[in-house]
């Protein structure tokens, strides 16, 4: 008899654990998530050199598709416009209605960012495929905002909100 009740108990516990999986998925999709950063385009802010393993970051996801919550200098992860299965990590260099001065290969010198779009660039300007290639991106593609570096421990407390790359590229003088 004891074995039947044990099986029954085990089954019950498994079902309870399974019923919490959708909750965990919802939290991961809408509140926060841990993501691994790959590649060198955000050097020196993230993945500063090749000798230490890749950074793992805490990603804040609540309300990030709202243009009001995306600010200049935030580091964001978003779906690559040219390939929706890829994820890019870049820094916001201009929010909606800002004018920014662009770099090669963007066809125009100064561009005004449309409503609910952001201009993104990597901190490592020369090894980065960014808005200079694909233009401003819709905030609907944004997956999350980098809140802090979680791993490796040597990178704890590293500053991610310090402006990198080309500096402030916003154009305030509208007479162009």
């Amino acid at each position, binding site marked *: 008899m004891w074995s039947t009740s044990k099986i029954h108990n085990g089954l019950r516990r498994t079902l309870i654990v399974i*019923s919490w999986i*959708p909750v965990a998925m919802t939290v991961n999709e809408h509140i926060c998530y841990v993501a691994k950063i790959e590649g060198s385009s955000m050097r020196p802010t993230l993945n500063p050199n090749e000798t230490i393993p890749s950074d793992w970051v805490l990603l804040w996801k609540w309300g990030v598709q709202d243009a009001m919550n995306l600010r200049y200098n935030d580091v964001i992860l978003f779906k690559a416009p040219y390939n*929706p299965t890829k994820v890019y990590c870049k820094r916001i260099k201009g929010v909606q209605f800002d004018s920014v001065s662009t770099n090669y290969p963007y066809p125009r010198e100064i561009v005004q960012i449309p409503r609910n779009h952001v201009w993104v660039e990597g901190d490592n300007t020369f090894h980065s495929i960014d808005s200079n290639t694909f233009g401003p991106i819709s905030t609907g593609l944004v997956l999350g905002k980098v809140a802090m570096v979680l791993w490796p421990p040597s990178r704890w407390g590293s500053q991610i909100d310090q402006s990198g790359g080309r500096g402030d590229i916003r154009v305030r003088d509208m007479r162009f």
Partner: protein
Amino acid sequence: MPGESGFRLFFRASSFALRSFCFIHIIHSHVYEFTETRGESMLPTLAATSDYVHALKRYSNGRDCKIGDCIIAAKPTDPHQRVCKRITGMPGDLILVDPSMGSNVSQTDEDYDDHFNSFIKVPKGHVWVTGDNLSQSLDSRTYNSLPMGLIKGKIVAANDLNEPFWGGKYGSLWGFRKINNIYIDER
């Protein structure tokens, strides 16, 4: 349960509610969604009011989407808003943007030619979308190609809940009809 305190009961009820809500949400965002559509842009395929659509989420991010498919996507200029459009151009296609803007009555010859000569090549990872009702639709002609990352699903069928339970205009359950790919390859 007898002997259970009010607090415990409340805790159990809210835990059950949370799990059910999240389960439905995950099914809605990853497997299947049944939702209302509004607006004139997809007439005559979908009515302007009271039409409900069945969307499969397997096709999100433009996976396996083909020209002629009816899709749900986030609007690029307002991601909280959903739009329902038909794919009319795939990556690499050359699109004549909007020849209807050119009118040889109201415009000079140059403007007229402009609208017949403005072509866009759809970049990779993007699609060209238009509403079925071209004269009442805000689509790729305004906001340019749509990144596939904004595609949320493909519409496979629709119901009109104003129709009777059985019979009616479509001769089916609550005006049920399939939404097909209407692309005709003329080559």
